[in-house]
């Protein structure tokens, strides 16, 4: 199926829950209402014409100027060899999205990474912990307004520029 047919199929089943189809993009995508996402995901996986059995990639993209975080789901069907992209636009101040771990088990680790690096809360996730960063890390590094703290447990996070070190006068030789 091509992307337009996939989108039409979703509209047929879920009506307003999916919208804003972008056929002109390199990877055609549509937006989904965050609270309908698990049902839409189930349709995407189980509908015999869609059969998206592989959740390829879960990415979060921060858009401060829109006040949103987009969670991007790249889907692929091994059965029909077609791909589709679903996005969910979340409020940046309170990014919450229902988890799709019951639909695709791979979402478990993918969503954890998105939580870890962008702070998106996946409701209903069985094990939403930090995965790549330490549990006491502050902030979400892939947000655009993230500012790195100067040190982590006394370990400095920045180093002097090596070229600056060369400019300083050489240390006096021990006599």
């Amino acid at each position, binding site marked *: 199926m091509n992307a337009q047919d996939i989108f039409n199929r979703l509209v047929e089943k879920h009506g307003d829950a999916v919208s804003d189809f972008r056929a002109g993009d*390199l*990877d055609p995508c549509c937006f989904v209402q965050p609270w309908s996402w698990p049902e839409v995901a189930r349709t995407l996986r189980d509908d015999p014409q869609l059969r998206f*059995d*592989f959740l*390829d*990639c879960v990415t979060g993209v921060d858009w401060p100027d829109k006040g949103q975080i987009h969670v991007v789901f790249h889907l692929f069907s091994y059965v029909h060899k077609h791909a589709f992209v679903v996005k969910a636009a979340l409020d940046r101040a309170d990014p919450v999205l229902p988890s799709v771990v019951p639909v695709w088990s*791979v979402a478990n*680790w*993918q969503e954890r990474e998105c939580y870890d690096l962008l702070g998106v809360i996946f409701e209903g996730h069985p094990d939403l912990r930090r995965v790549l960063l330490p549990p006491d890390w502050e902030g979400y590094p892939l947000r655009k307004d993230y500012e790195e703290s100067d040190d982590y447990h006394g370990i400095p996070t920045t180093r002097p520029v090596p070229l600056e070190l060369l400019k300083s006068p050489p240390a006096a030789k021990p006599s």
Partner: protein
Amino acid sequence: MSEYVFANQLDEEMTLNMGPHHPSTHGVLRFVIESDGEIIRRAVPDVGYLHRSIEKIGERCTYPGYMPYTDRVDYLAAMFANEAWASACEKLMGIEVPKRAQYLRVISCELNRIASHMIALGAMAMDVGAVTPFPWTLREREYINDFIEELCGARLTYNYHRIGGVSFDLPAGWREKVTKWLDHFGPIMEEFDRLITYNEIYVNRLGNVCVITKDVAIDYGLVGPNLRASGFKWDLRKDMPYGAYPDFEFDVPVGQGLKGAVGDCWDRFYVRVEECKQSARIVRQALEKIDAHPEGDIVGKLPKKMRPSAEAYARIESARGDMGCYVVGNGKEEPYRCRFRTGSYNATGIIEPMSRGIFIADLVALIASLDVVAPEIDR
């Protein structure tokens, strides 16, 4: 990274720590194991020791300037991260890659695939107690490292691919050297089969251990050799061909359960062994056919300014399976967001559910057979 505290610690249960500096964890990877004697209740992977935030670094580099960083996504198979990044940028900006550059990409990637599988196979054999194959495989890998060094100047972090092509053409006399090595590599793989693949002790050790069925493999997002070992014939090079792959003849090996159930640890070993042989076939064909395309035509026509404002997702078949690269551009010289979706990351996610009820010794076999590489998990 986290400290994991188990809720109900009964008297009979032990909480063991494995890693992060355990030889069988392939890099820096830690497991917290809750076990009842030798039987694992569950093993929780604790990753992130090698996290360098490559995706954040990408937001500060220009599109071509990010290429050397992609080497660090997976140091055993750096060509593929190069290729994934290049493919994503080419798709984003609509750049055509000349045929000769596509051939060079195939040659470099397939050589790198053999080198990466050599480590995977040797290390897996060593993890379960067979020490001899490891130096054998390292020796073959060393030849490949030398070839690639001659091709692009680096042994591990290649930085060979460019957006729109590759950086160097074949050096003089290189083709003869590689062909000679391929002649030697065929018999070596047969010997390797006799040494370890079909070795009865090894077969008994790995057959029927940690069976991952096809449906579970797809559900947990396993890709590449791990997915094929579960009996699912899927290879991006064959099923959704990219680059020059349609020009070559090769087979896609799948796990058949020859020594146990389909999708056991032995199948994952076997698939990688067979893939090495197929990669050698591809390299040989590519070296024969490359001269049909004019020498020196290795970089396509690039736009003057790389400032795309669109987004693209490209997938390639890396040594650890389907690798996805997602790029968002917003009209600036630096990408707005870049993302690598790697095979090892998903494969680490399946270790916890698979570890329930297996022996501690089999956990080592499971980790090794999934061929997870710590930098590719953590990025």
